[in-house]
């Protein structure tokens, strides 16, 4: 009986441990929608969820499995009031694309990963624009998603550093986990 309890305790701890990246992402997403109005709303808020999805796909997909990406996408859809499934689909695609290209991105040092994020953000923005027009059934200006992608790319190093701290607190296993 005690063994089972111990096992359950360990399992629970592991679960909480593994959920830290997800919780950190949720916290940052909530901060991103706080009514801060920096620069009077002239600059679009960065896509924190995409940064997180890319970072964990690059530096430890074990800590952010596909179901967690699904949950992040669904939270984003609920949070900003988008059609359910919209950002889920886009983040799952970004996750899969990053996973398939991580060896390529990893091959370059430091700035290579940033460049990788720029590519993923650009593709994601283009897909969001196309999917948006499909879902809303009208012509949309590509400026919105474009500027959001640009802001996301600009702030990526800062958030990547933050996530790197989270990752170091989880494990010091080598880069590709």
């Amino acid at each position, binding site marked *: 009986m005690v063994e089972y309890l111990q096992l359950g305790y360990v399992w629970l701890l592991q679960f909480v441990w593994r959920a830290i990246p997800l919780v950190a992402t949720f916290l940052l997403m*909530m*901060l991103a*929608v*706080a*009514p*801060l*109005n920096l620069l*009077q*709303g002239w600059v*679009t*808020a960065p896509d924190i969820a995409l940064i997180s999805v890319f970072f964990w796909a690059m530096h430890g997909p074990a800590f952010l*499995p*596909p*179901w967690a*990406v*699904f949950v992040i*996408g*669904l939270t984003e859809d*609920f*949070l*900003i*009031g*988008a*059609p*359910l*499934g*919209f950002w*889920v*689909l886009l983040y*799952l*695609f970004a*996750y*899969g694309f990053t*996973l*398939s*290209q991580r*060896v*390529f991105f990893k091959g370059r040092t430091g700035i290579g990963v940033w460049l990788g994020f720029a590519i993923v953000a650009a593709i994601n923005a283009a897909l*969001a624009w196309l999917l*948006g027009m499909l*879902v*809303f059934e*009208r012509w*949309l*200006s590509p400026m*919105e*998603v474009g500027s*959001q992608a640009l802001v996301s790319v600009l702030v990526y190093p800062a958030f990547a550093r933050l996530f790197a701290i989270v990752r170091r607190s989880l494990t010091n*296993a*080598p*880069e*590709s986990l």
Partner: protein
Amino acid sequence: MAWTSRRRRSPSSVWAFIVQNPVLGVLVVAAVALLFLSRSQEEIVQAARSLFDDASSSALEAVAKPTAEGKRWLEGVTTFFSTYEENQRLRDENARLRTAQSELAEMQRKVGRYEQLLKIPAESPVTSIAGRVIADTSGPFVRTILVSAGRDQGVEKGQAVVDDRGLLGRIIGAGKRSARVLLLSDLNSRIPVIVEGANLKAILVGDNSDRPTLEYLPPGSRLVAGARVVTTADGAALPPGVAIGIVVKGEGSPKVQLFTSEGRADFVRVLHYRIENDVDEEAPQSAPTDPAKPRIDPKAATPKPASPAGNAGPGARPATLMRFR
């Protein structure tokens, strides 16, 4: 370098990648199904959204409060050095407003008297519910905000939301403690409006910019740039006379520069306004026999005139007050 042995080789084709990650494939299918579901089952999705908004509202409020305080503190620091000029400016403005206030009181007395003479039925009073903006979730394609007042406070779907500058949007979903506001600039926003001066009715259509378009104007109508655009009571959805913006020239259709350009509201008011559309069981007794003759029915008009602003009680404000900006 033990980890290099675990490094997966880049798959040569998309199909090989999907076979390697079956969970991802299943989740993508689920996402597409969800996208279709959210279009076909709107009521269920709306209920789920309200549940989510309620559940997340306390967390969002916990984040929003300190950020609002921080913002206020930052503003305090930046305005510290211009206090004297600001004080002078406010003194001048106060003097101007005092004059305007006495003029307004005189006008209200006059309008009240005219309405009494013309036997105009009293307008429905507009009451308001105050709320804090707890999330400004204006991403690409969707422009909404979340406010900290819900069904428990009397917020209902369709009500107008204003701040001190004018109309922000309307409620699209009300939870128990929170409500979601569709901003005027959102793609799905459609508001019946009237252009002051020309007295032209139109529909204000959001197009994801700070300048929504005026559509369904009468053909050949001419607008003056700078004319004020306010709400009308058409459709019995919004209280009449709430300030929205001014007409500006646009490519193609005329546009409206909103008074409430994106995301600067901290506190908002949700306006409660209702006109009941009623159907009489029988035709009125005193119906005129000659339809060409104008019908004047003294009984139809309400004998009591619209109450002036002072008597309306603390929450209730007559709609005419909204006009004053």
